[in-house]
């Protein structure tokens, strides 16, 4: 179990985060760049001192700012950190990098079998500079796992890699974390990365945790308009007194009143996006963006779409329970 309840001063704002990650659980910290996600990780790793707070890992107290004070140095924390730059030591071979934390175990079967499992078994005698980006990340991951850390922190580790490498590496990390039962925290500013990794997700903005929950629930039921914007809602439509969040992927062409509110407006602009068409729709009070399978008419032509069971927000920007509001079928 990893527990962190900390406040860290940054130049422009204070980061306040309270998270708990069980053994084998994978938490994603999702938010825009500069939201303070990395600061949370660095506080857990002991690289940044919090103003106030507590960090506990596997029954040990790593940081406590109240008396009796505790500040375990990074080298005694047993926390593994993987960043975008894999940080292999360039003067050591891959084998020596893997065995860095336990030089005596360099001939052990564990090193070889893990390297084989990660697909770098034949690169052990190579120097890190000869490895591709994906291979370097595998080696860095193997090094963390061989160091037997009690928690795995991943700071946008795959930001520089192509989509295919991200997918295979994410699957690999998920499998290894589950097998070893360590708590893992991933920092991501891409929603897809966070969703692919996480069993639970926390949305962070300007140093504060806005929402924690199941990744799909956060996307379908954001607690505020700000969270909605962060997870990809592009525009809000007025529905009675409330605002419905419109996610571009959750819109059907035509009027299907059973599935959600029907929106009528005119095409403002459209452009190809993936296999469909991203279309800006001018509604009476606002503009919303949605992805449609078929090409819409030219700008100015009328268009009718249905928003699939959208989240509803009150005037203060916080979510309204759609069931309680009794609007689900009416609108």
């Amino acid at each position, binding site marked *: 179990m990893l527990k962190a309840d900390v406040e860290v001063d940054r130049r422009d704002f204070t980061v306040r985060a309270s998270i708990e990650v069980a053994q084998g659980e994978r938490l994603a910290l999702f938010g825009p760049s500069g939201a303070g996600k990395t600061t949370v990780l660095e506080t857990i*790793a002991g*690289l940044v001192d919090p103003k106030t707070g507590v960090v506990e890992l596997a029954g040990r107290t790593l940081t406590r700012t109240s008396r009796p004070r505790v500040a375990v*140095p*990074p*080298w*005694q*924390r*047993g*926390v*593994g*950190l993987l*960043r975008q*730059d894999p*940080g292999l*030591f*360039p*003067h050591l071979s891959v084998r020596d990098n893997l065995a*860095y*934390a336990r030089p005596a175990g360099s001939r052990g079967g564990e090193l070889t079998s893990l390297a084989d499992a990660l*697909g*770098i*078994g*034949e*690169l052990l005698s*190579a*120097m*890190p*500079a*000869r*490895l*591709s980006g*994906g*291979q370097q990340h595998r080696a860095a991951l193997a*090094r*963390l796992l061989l*160091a037997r*850390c009690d928690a795995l922190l991943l700071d946008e580790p795959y930001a520089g890699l*192509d*989509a*295919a*490498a991200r*997918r*295979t590496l994410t699957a690999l990390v998920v499998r290894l974390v589950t097998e070893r039962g360590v708590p893992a925290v991933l920092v991501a500013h891409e929603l897809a990365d966070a969703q692919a990794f996480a069993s639970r997700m926390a949305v962070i903005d300007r140093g504060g945790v806005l929402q924690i929950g199941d990744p799909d629930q956060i996307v379908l039921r954001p607690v505020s308009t700000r969270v909605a914007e962060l997870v990809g809602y592009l525009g809000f439509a007025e529905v009675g007194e409330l605002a419905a969040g419109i996610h571009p992927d959750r819109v059907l062409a035509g009027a299907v009143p059973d599935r959600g509110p029907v929106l009528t407006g005119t095409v403002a602009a459209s452009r190809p996006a993936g296999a469909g068409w991203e279309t800006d729709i001018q509604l009476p009070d606002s503009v919303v963006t949605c992805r449609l399978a078929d090409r819409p008419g030219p700008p100015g032509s009328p268009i009718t779409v249905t928003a699939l069971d959208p989240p509803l927000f009150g005037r203060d920007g916080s979510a309204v329970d759609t069931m309680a509001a009794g609007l689900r079928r009416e609108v």
Partner: protein
Amino acid sequence: MSWAASPAAAGTARGAEDPPGQPGRADGGPAFPRRIRSVSGAASIVGAGLIWIVLLGPVITLLTHLSWHAITSSLSYPGALDPLIVSLESGGVTLAVLFLFCTPLAYKLARGSLPFPRIWEAGVLCALLLPPLVIGLLLVFMVGPYTPFGDLIGHFNLSATNTFLALVIAEVYESAPYYVVGAQAAFGSVSPRLEQQAELLGDRPRRVFRRVTLPLSAPGLAMALSVAWARAMGAFGAVIIIAYHPYGLPLQIFTTLQETGLASALPYALVLLVVALPLPLAAYVWSARAQGRRRG
């Protein structure tokens, strides 16, 4: 045709990464010498060659003006090689002092971990810019007889004028700034993230320094040390004022020049070059090889 996605299509995304055993090429391909495409290109090469020859001119001149007879006759009388011994010993002590005392300063400068880092750097720069002759003059007032420091070491029957100690002090002052600046650059080239990573893998800072920082900065440190060595070997300005005796090689050249003329001073110039150059050259070759090893 069925609407269900075929399993083969879903499987193509996997394994798209580099297959193991075929690491990406570190270099961009075969390097052809750049072709000379224009008159200005040719002129710049000729100009560069000229400057290179002009810079090497003194060395070439030295080699053309030396005769075997002159070398043997001036270096054969008893005690002729004493200045060499003195220079080597004082240079060695100087390097040891620099490495022990200036390395921590250079590291802290590189990491910016000192308060008011600009002021510290300005101080090093100031020492670097002081003319050696001025250093010598000021050293007399700082460590000479009748100064607090002179009194202090006088209790131990030591003196910092015209002694081996004075020679070492003068050489340290002439070479230390060069070492600090070079070592700072060497440490600066090691990413602090790598040191963090080593700490998180369980190493105390001292062990991190030994296992990561030092090996990675070693080529740069060796270059800085060898530059300091060359400065110490050739130290003259401060030395002539505060440590006229015992003669090191530069003073030997100077006095020989004054007493017996150019021809008999030249062999000592050769000796000075021969002792001052190998260390820098070895450091250069070694650091180039270390870089090559890292590229694998």
